[in-house]
């Protein structure tokens, strides 16, 4: 087997490292006498073309995954009429959206209305350029890759606002403002979770983070379980996925910020949400699960295939939470971020900084310290979560007689719940039918 691998290595058809193929093309150009800038432009276009090809395939496949897998999780069949197992359903969806009329309200801001779906899509695609797809396969090897990812995630809030404002519709604007509040709130725990990782590996370069995991034979999810959980939850809030998709819940706010979009503009919003989810899954697969490195398996199977497999493993986690959990209220979401996730992320940073200090100051070998860190961090994460809920959470009541509101956040207080009426008997009193949305 290894003889076979050494025979085919470094040829242009060695697809374990796609840079062989692009290097072969670039050498042809150089031998034919092309100038330096042409080589650079062609290599950039080849890399970008590969990423866009992956994005196109992912957007189509993920539509099927969302509908079929969520359907099976909810004990119902998903799409099953078009093609075997409904596999041609996304094509039908795309054709339907393309042939619909792209309506635009007459009083809407034309330019702002049209720019919003594009501004929502572009950061999600650009993020995939800084990720390492293989040992030599990074399109843009930035030294500040992690901060670049965070910057691109923060541009999504603006795109949502332009969509909601440009529709000239009060429900769209209302939904957009709630989404901005949620996105800005959930940026903080996600930044702090990734900060813990950057502290531990000592570099912000994503290729170096994967090489760190390769060097110490340790996917970082084992040694940092709490940042994995915090980043997963805050990303599912930033991506407007259930359980945090109150911005676009058709049953509550008539579709939120994309109520006025129809046809392929709405299709672009929908595809952009899936692409953003794929981008976040790719980031989590890179920094937490090891990217293209998988314990020497990447010498046989191409690393980028393993990377795509890990992307879909994390994406399956997102789809699993979507199919299982109900939707949260806006005050529950915001209180959860400010009162629970942000303090946890701060405590995690203190613990990680102490561990890194111990590692660098005492100079003990990594083989001794890292298993200890894995055990300590895992136990600490479990203890922190369970202890916080036990001692600092609200008291659990088996038959609640009034809903639990979080003060200061825009939930209208119902007069019926202000003080108990004299003739009410507590549990037997039916609550008012106009419940809080």
């Amino acid at each position, binding site marked *: 087997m290894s003889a076979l691998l050494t025979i085919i290595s470094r040829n242009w058809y060695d697809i374990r490292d796609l840079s062989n193929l692009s290097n072969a093309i670039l050498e042809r150009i150089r031998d034919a006498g092309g100038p330096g800038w042409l080589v650079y432009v062609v290599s950039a276009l080849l890399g970008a073309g590969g990423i866009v090809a992956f994005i196109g395939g992912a957007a189509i496949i993920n539509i099927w995954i969302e509908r079929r897998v969520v359907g099976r999780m909810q004990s119902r069949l998903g799409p099953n009429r078009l093609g075997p197992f409904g596999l041609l359903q996304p094509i039908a969806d795309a054709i339907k959206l393309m042939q619909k009329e792209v309506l635009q309200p007459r009083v809407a*801001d034309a330019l702002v209305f049209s720019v919003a779906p594009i501004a929502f899509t572009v950061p999600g695609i650009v993020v995939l350029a800084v990720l390492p797809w293989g040992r030599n396969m990074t399109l843009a090897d930035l*030294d*500040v890759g992690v901060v670049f990812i965070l910057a691109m995630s*923060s541009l999504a809030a603006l795109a949502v606002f332009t969509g909601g404002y440009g529709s000239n519709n009060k429900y769209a*604007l209302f939904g957009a*403002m709630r989404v901005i509040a949620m996105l800005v709130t959930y940026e903080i725990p996600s930044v702090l979770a990734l900060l813990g990782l950057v502290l531990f590996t000592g570099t912000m370069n994503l290729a170096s983070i994967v090489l760190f995991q390769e060097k110490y034979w340790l996917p970082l999810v084992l040694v940092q379980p709490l940042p994995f959980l915090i980043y997963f939850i805050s990303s599912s809030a930033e991506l407007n996925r259930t359980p945090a998709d109150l911005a676009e819940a058709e049953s509550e706010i008539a579709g939120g910020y994309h109520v006025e979009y129809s046809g392929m503009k709405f299709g672009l919003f929908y595809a952009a949400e899936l692409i953003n989810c794929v981008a976040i899954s790719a980031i989590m697969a890179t920094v937490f699960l090891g990217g293209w490195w998988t314990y020497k398996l990447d010498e046989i199977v191409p690393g980028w295939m393993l990377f795509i497999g890990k992307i879909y493993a994390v994406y399956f986690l997102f789809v699993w939470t979507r199919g299982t959990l109900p939707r949260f209220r806006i005050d529950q979401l915001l209180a959860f971020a400010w009162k629970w996730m942000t303090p946890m992320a701060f405590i995690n940073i203190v613990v990680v900084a102490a561990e890194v200090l111990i590692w660098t100051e005492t100079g003990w070998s990594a083989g001794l310290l890292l298993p200890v860190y894995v055990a300590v961090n895992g136990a600490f994460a479990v203890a922190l979560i369970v202890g916080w809920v036990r001692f600092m959470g609200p008291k659990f009541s088996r038959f609640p007689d009034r809903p*639990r*509101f979080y003060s200061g956040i825009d939930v209208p207080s119902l007069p019926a719940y202000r003080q108990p009426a004299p003739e009410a008997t507590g549990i037997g009193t039916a609550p008012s039918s106009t419940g809080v949305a």
Partner: protein
Amino acid sequence: MIDQTAVVVAFYVIAASTVACALMVAAVRNLVHAVLFLVLTFVGVAGIYVVLSADFVAVAQVLIYAGAISVLLTFAIMLTPGADRRNSETVYQGPAFVLAGLLLAVIVFVVYDTDWRIAGRGEFAVTAAELGRAFFKPYIVPFEVASVLLVAAMVGAIVLTREEADDAF
């Protein structure tokens, strides 16, 4: 791989688009459009930082300005009752032009009076690590004072906006 002409072309393209967006911020009538053009200006300034090889500052510019400060401006405009679409015709346009002209004169004078030296292109240290070292060795006191200032601002914002709710946990 990138030679000098590509850098110069990139700089002029980014600078031209940034100046155009900045002019549109002042010239457009609708206030929300002005905020969106301001966001494009921020991204253009980040591009100029990239031309200068300041990678961390460029990404921090996008993260902080285009990501957070623009949201702040958006909320400020949305929560102000008078921020109408046709609210840009005021009597203060004359004095504003005079003030802007004076500021322009000061900046042009400073640009012409400075002794610009073309530095030799040496080895670029990794900017994020250098910034971190600068925060913790010479500039530690301003760093701590800035964080105290931020905490004071947050506490002030919460005090200003809280309301006494007596029926909530």
